[in-house]
């Protein structure tokens, strides 16, 4: 198991990202650690505003440089070919290096397919551009290749000369996927790829991503607040709350044996097939605190049903406890049991 863990593709260690706004510092990501192995799917779940997207954007250094700063932590990425490991947290945000990785080794698919393609250029133009950036191809070859990619995502070939506004949401998300995968990235970051789509289209896109993942042997970082999507796609799951990864483990561990009170609450709050229909859903009490507040210790203690007042505001809750192999939780309940 240990040797396997060393063969990571991407490893985020204690990432901390702050936004400087007029109202004060927003601690978007306080402490996030993730490990993604080649070819596997990592699910990242959490409520809106918990820092999922910021974590994803930090990997490609797409955050606005003027207001946003990676305070500490590292984002280790193993490059294709020579297996060299670089720390993406330390590269120039608009430098040559990160640009050669963007769209080439790490690609991204976004939440809003309606706006993620420029309305004034054809789909083909935008895909060919991505291909030509990273591969030495003649324009004609690139065009043929783009057509091939469109076929791979089950779009009709003549979409290549269409403007995005003529496509449906699902078709655009397919086109985006074709563009993202056109350079065979080893990691695809899917930032809520299905949120804006209707349920049937969601299922199609998920299926498409899964089959392309197998063909291309790439890892996926699946960011969503939809636990159903996670259950269907992910191998491992990390649960985020207020900028912290509070629990991580395999899909089975998280769904069958959730440990952190937040994860337990999250799973309780979704409807289940076959359960008593009269039963009300159990929402998590309270709401997400204002992003400007600084919470010492466990971020969830303000809403936590089992919070022990003593100790939960201390520093030691931040340390991960490995309760079973590969299953990590940041909660005092388990650290005491472990001690």
């Amino acid at each position, binding site marked *: 198991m240990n040797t396997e863990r060393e063969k990571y593709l991407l490893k985020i260690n204690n990432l901390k990202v702050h936004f400087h706004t007029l109202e004060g510092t927003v601690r978007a990501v306080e402490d996030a650690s993730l490990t993604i192995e080649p070819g596997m799917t990592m699910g990242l779940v959490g409520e809106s505003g918990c820092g999922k997207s910021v974590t994803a954007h930090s990997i490609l250094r797409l955050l606005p440089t003027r207001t946003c700063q990676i305070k500490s932590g590292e984002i280790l990425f193993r490059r294709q070919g020579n297996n060299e490991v670089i720390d993406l947290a330390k590269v120039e945000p608009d430098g040559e290096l990160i*640009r050669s990785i963007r769209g080439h080794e790490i690609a991204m698919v976004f939440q809003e397919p309606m706006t993620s393609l420029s309305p004034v250029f054809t789909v083909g133009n935008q895909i060919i551009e991505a291909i030509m950036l990273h591969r030495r191809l003649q324009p004609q070859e690139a065009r043929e290749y783009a057509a091939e990619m469109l076929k791979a995502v089950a779009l009709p070939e003549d979409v290549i000369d269409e403007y995005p506004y003529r496509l449906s949401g699902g078709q655009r998300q397919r086109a985006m996927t074709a563009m993202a995968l056109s350079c065979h990235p080893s990691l695809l970051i899917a930032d809520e790829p299905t949120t804006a789509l209707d349920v049937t289209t969601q299922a199609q896109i998920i299926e498409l991503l899964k089959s392309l993942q197998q063909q291309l042997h790439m890892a996926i970082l699946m960011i969503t607040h939809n636990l159903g999507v996670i259950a269907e796609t992910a191998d491992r799951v990390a649960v985020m709350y207020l900028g912290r990864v509070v629990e991580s483990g395999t899909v089975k561990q998280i769904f069958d044996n959730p440990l952190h009170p937040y994860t337990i609450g999250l799973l309780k709050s979704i409807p289940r097939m076959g359960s008593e229909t009269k039963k009300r859903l159990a929402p998590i009490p309270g709401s997400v605190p204002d992003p400007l507040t600084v919470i010492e210790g466990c971020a969830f203690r303000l809403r936590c049903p089992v919070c022990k007042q003593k100790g939960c505001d201390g520093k030691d809750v931040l340390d991960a406890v490995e309760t079973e192999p590969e299953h990590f939780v940041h909660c005092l309940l388990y650290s005491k049991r472990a001690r």
Partner: protein
Amino acid sequence: MIPTLIIISFITFVVIQLPPGDFVTSVQAEIAATGGGMDAATVEAMRIRYGLDQPKIVQYWRWISGFPKGDFGYSLEWNAPVWKVIFKRLGWTLLISGLALMFMWMVSIPIGIYSARYQYSVADNLFSFLGFLGLSIPDFMLSLIWLVFGTLVLRVPAYGLYSPQMVDAPWSWAKFLDLLIHLWAPVIILGVVGTAELIRIMRGNLLDVLNQQYITTARAKGLPEDAVIRKYAVRMAINPLISVLGMQIPKMISGSIIVGVVLSIPTIGPIFLRSLITQDMYLAGAILLFMTTLLLVGNLLADIALAMVDPRIRYE
């Protein structure tokens, strides 16, 4: 467009007729002001000769029925066909307005892009300050300031189109240079307000566009920032500017009248003012009509240009 023009020609005619009296009364008044006098018979003879005794509707019909033949009426004051009087001046008006438009676009777009990319930088704040200054100084004021400053401080010719010794000279390189020296100031004065406006619009648009998802998509592809701005951001931010172009044209035309009067440039401005004072109705009416035509044509061109650059707008 043709029905619009017919309606406009009618409204124009009505508006021109609104002031009390007519050309003959204004001639009378002028002669009286210099101590002379006209007897009633002469006045009546003049009215009949100019057709001013006819009902208004007949006068209107006489005026517009000549349009298809290129006859825009007869200037009572200049004793010449209207077209002959304004032809050359219309050219100057178009030239100066056109140059001012080009100046506006060439200056405001780069500044707008810079201001948006480096929002709140020292240069951005400076451009904003200058922009608001430009917005708040009316063009006649700028013309007057230039007249005083250019003549007294710089000692350069600050009015007219040519130096006095060049006016009647045949075309030559020297005359052309002389023209350029005279031309740049009115062009800039005419363009200042529009430039300031366009900078604000361009900056705002670009800031808007830079927050769009497709900009992040373009960056996530690995495109260099300059290419992202050039291809994806500026391309989208310019569209509203083209729509604004249609609105800018009437401002250019009315601006050229004012600047023309103040800096005594033979645009249509001075002659238009004069025709209104003397109630030279066919001349004033024709000038108004030409300007509205320019406006309509300008708007049409702006619409066509917009349809060409934005694939989402296609007229079937």
